[in-house]
């Protein structure tokens, strides 16, 4: 169905498209789930709306309430749209080293942005948001890193959609941030089709982002459940950009930079399966489109130059 009562109702049901040119063989095929076809253009619409609806059911959110969230961008944009339609205020705590488009979109939706320092990346945003939550007890922090509604949105939505569209699915590859996508989809797939391999691709940023003062400031999201994963790849900016451009040049898909990291891991998995002579259907997530990253220069000039421009930026 393509008719909806409101933008919020148009969530999910995203297309799964084959990648005939990038698939290694006829027997090992790659499939992209286009999560940029969600209301604000990213996969984060799913957890954002699910977390808001859970807080409404629990009576934590009422008309006029203020939502607080640490976010490097997409979750904030999703929350800002839903908050606008539902009559909530929104305060986003965002690292200062994110793309300018993310800041502009949040401001366009009327969200307040509190910037956290670049060094330490999202860790600092989480720490600052927790301080703000304590100082403002009437604000409602949804907290995507530990909110079960985040993973549930993928357990109920993304996972079943994938298996319905691709019953022959053998591998699922997604980006690792809050871990919500991989934990939710992974749990669903392991229950519904236990042989499916679930693979994480996490961005490897420049040194600035890992600049913690001490190791005890390290952060593992409360949602993270490594038992649902069969492997985890760390992908740097150069490989992420290279794959992002290959996806555009070969298959016509204009994706964000994190998708390049996910495709890099998906190709590694697919090539291993092909080398063993297996038949495989490898599905991966296109978390958002490239629009929000044009100003980073990701799509122009040499890969080395583009990767150098991303150093120290939170590009996923």
């Amino acid at each position, binding site marked *: 169905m393509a008719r909806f009562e409101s933008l919020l109702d148009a969530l999910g049901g995203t297309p799964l498209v084959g990648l005939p040119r990038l698939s290694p063989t006829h027997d090992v095929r790659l499939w992209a789930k286009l999560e940029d076809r969600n209301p604000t253009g990213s996969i984060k619409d799913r957890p954002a709306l699910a977390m808001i609806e859970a807080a409404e059911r629990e009576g934590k959110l009422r008309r006029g309430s203020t939502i607080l969230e*640490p*976010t*490097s961008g997409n*979750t904030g944009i999703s929350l800002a749209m839903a908050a606008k339609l539902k009559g909530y205020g929104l305060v986003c705590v965002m690292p200062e080293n994110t793309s300018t488009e993310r800041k502009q979109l949040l401001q366009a939706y009327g969200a307040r942005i509190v910037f956290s320092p670049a060094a*330490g*990346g*999202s*860790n600092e*945003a*989480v720490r600052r948001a927790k301080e703000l939550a304590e100082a403002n007890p009437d604000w409602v922090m949804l907290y*995507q*890193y530990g909110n079960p509604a985040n993973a549930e949105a993928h357990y109920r939505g993304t996972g079943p959609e994938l298996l319905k569209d691709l019953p022959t699915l053998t591998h699922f590859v997604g*980006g*690792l*941030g*809050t871990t919500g996508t991989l934990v939710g989809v992974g749990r669903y797939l392991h229950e519904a089709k236990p042989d499916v391999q679930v693979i*994480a691709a*996490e*961005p*490897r*940023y420049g*040194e600035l*982002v*890992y*600049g*913690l*003062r*001490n*190791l*005890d*400031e*390290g*952060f*593992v*999201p409360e949602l993270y459940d*490594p038992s649902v*994963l*069969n*492997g*985890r*790849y*760390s*992908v740097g900016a150069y490989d992420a950009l290279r794959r992002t451009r290959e996806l555009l040049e070969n298959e016509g898909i204009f994706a964000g930079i994190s998708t390049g990291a996910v495709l890099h*891991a998906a190709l*590694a998995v697919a090539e291993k399966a092909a080398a063993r002579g297996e038949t495989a259907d490898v599905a991966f997530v296109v978390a958002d489109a490239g629009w929000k990253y044009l100003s980073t220069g990701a799509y122009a000039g040499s890969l080395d130059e583009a990767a150098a421009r991303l150093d120290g930026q939170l590009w*996923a």
Partner: protein
Amino acid sequence: MAVTVSIPTILRTHTGGEKSVEAKGATVLEVIDDVESRHAGIKGRLVKEEKLHRFINVYVNDEDVRFAGGLEAEVKDGDTLTILPAVAGG
């Protein structure tokens, strides 16, 4: 040939500021022990009770060793072992 070990900023106090060091070993633990023999104290930051510190991630080339045998994960000549603190995404 040897293994290249990439050291995060936070642990470079142990390597005299070096971003990466060369080491030998057939497993992650052997490589860490070899680094420790020249850069005393680093192992205690990485390994707690015979397991990797919960806020430390180690990758052989690009793959997280926790899914490949942990400290016993295989390392080959020419591999890069990358050590990184765990940070938030999202």
